[in-house]
């Protein structure tokens, strides 16, 4: 008798357990799926492909305002502008051109307007080997000193190339030097990086190297 009583009790307990399970399953009492992490969408500024500057050639091609390049609107023809230097013999940028910050070359080398600009004809550049170049040919000016980079740029290995790798299938553009580099201060300033990656189930511990060198 005892045996069958025990069996009865056990079977009743099992039935009860199944009933509890049924309720637990239907009401999803445990095992809720955690909601997906709220990751903010990236600022569209990070995925746009425009260059930071626009070269004279691009402005001219898209028929935009070129008045910035009208030097003789202020300067007198035939009268070369006077360059002023401070007591350390560093060029003083005139008030009218105060948006220009000179930084082309370290240790104040190359901080001389007439290294690139022709003082007798402000609408042209001059190279060291005596060539006269138009504003739209500025890349040749850069290349007259920066030979290896110019060679790479010509081959498409330096700077931005966009459009089609397969020239037969479509247009291909190569940006001029000044589309990316400010000619008076060519070194790229630092910029804010786009957001860092998010790891699934991230536990919140910072990455190890951020804590110190090993």
């Amino acid at each position, binding site marked *: 008798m005892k045996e069958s009583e025990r069996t009865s009790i056990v079977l009743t307990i099992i039935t009860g357990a*199944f009933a509890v399970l049924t309720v637990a399953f239907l009401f999803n009492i445990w095992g809720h799926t955690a909601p997906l992490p709220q990751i903010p969408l990236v600022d569209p500024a990070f995925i746009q492909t425009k260059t930071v500057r626009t070269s004279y050639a691009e402005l001219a091609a898209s028929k935009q305002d070129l008045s910035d390049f009208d030097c003789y609107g202020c300067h007198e023809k035939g009268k070369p502008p006077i360059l002023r230097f401070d007591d350390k013999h560093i060029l003083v940028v005139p008030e009218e051109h105060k948006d220009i910050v000179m930084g082309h070359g370290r240790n104040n080398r190359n901080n001389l307007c007439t290294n690139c600009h022709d003082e007798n004809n402000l609408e042209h550049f001059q190279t060291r080997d005596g060539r006269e170049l138009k504003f739209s040919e500025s890349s040749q000016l850069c290349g007259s000193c920066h030979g290896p980079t110019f060679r790479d740029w010509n081959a498409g290995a330096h700077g931005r190339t966009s459009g089609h790798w397969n020239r037969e299938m479509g247009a291909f553009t190569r940006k001029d030097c000044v589309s*990316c580099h400010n000619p008076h201060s060519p070194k790229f300033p630092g910029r804010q990086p786009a957001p860092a*990656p998010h790891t699934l189930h991230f536990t919140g511990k910072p990455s190890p190297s951020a804590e110190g060198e090993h």
Partner: protein
Amino acid sequence: MSDHPSNGERNPAPDADGMSRRSFLRMSAVFGSGLAALAAGLSPLRELQNFPSLDEFMQKYYKELTPAEMEKVLKRIELEVERQYGIRPHVRDLKPIDGVEFAYCLNLTRCIGCRKCVHACVAENNQSRSPEIQYIRVLQMQNGSMDMEKAVHDYNPEKVPEKGHFYMPVQCQQCKNPPCVKVCPVHATWQEPDGITVIDYNWCIGCRYCEAACPYWARRFNFTKPTIPKDRLNPNMDYLSNRPRPQGTMEKCHFCLQRTRAGRYPACVEVCPTGTRKFGNVLDPNSEVSYILKNKRVFIQLKEELGTSPRFFYYFDV
């Protein structure tokens, strides 16, 4: 212990102690409640989205589809995407161009670690924003060392590049000898003639063996249904590349084949502000990549010693 007939069969002849009807009721109670628990246990399946249609379930392997069958598949995918995102995409199946083998050169002198490539890739290729999937991972390395253990993945300073570091973006290297292709149990991933290792998202069983095999941590898994914001969906899609991937399948960089097989640069190349990334046909002697491989001198192929023969060449500018 003698055996009894299995439950459910009534034993109308009660034995001496009259237990039989009770035992039948007992067993029915157990079975009944057990079946109820079983049915209730299956209830989370109600939350299943996108259960595959019969067409999708029975879909043949990519390489076995006839052009007519492929048309039907592409149409089906277009309709599915329209239903889910409200935008009718254009899904194509671009074939590799003859005489083309892609190579990628990455100039480590120039990379500033801005991560624009990471996000341009996400936008172009309809990757999941949450859980976040990014094919490109930019490592902030320490000057003088290629030790990736010292690399930082989640750097977030005010300005990059930071002094003392160089930046190395890593994505699928499209190896000539890919370990992922070797280990896939169902041939869901393979290498195409133009060098791109592709995945048939409708064939992958999600075992993640390829993810374990990849030495570059280049492959990603869809742990759940991807979240793509409707207003950022790129409707120019390709079957093997940037169409929205199903839950439970693998994905990875595919050199934007929806662009590159149409002759265009991948999104990462287009957006890079410093011209670090160079891409093209290595079989064309006039391409940028051929020029770089011919004229630069210090090259790094990541984990070269593993014999994977990557098509990705990192170089420094001398």
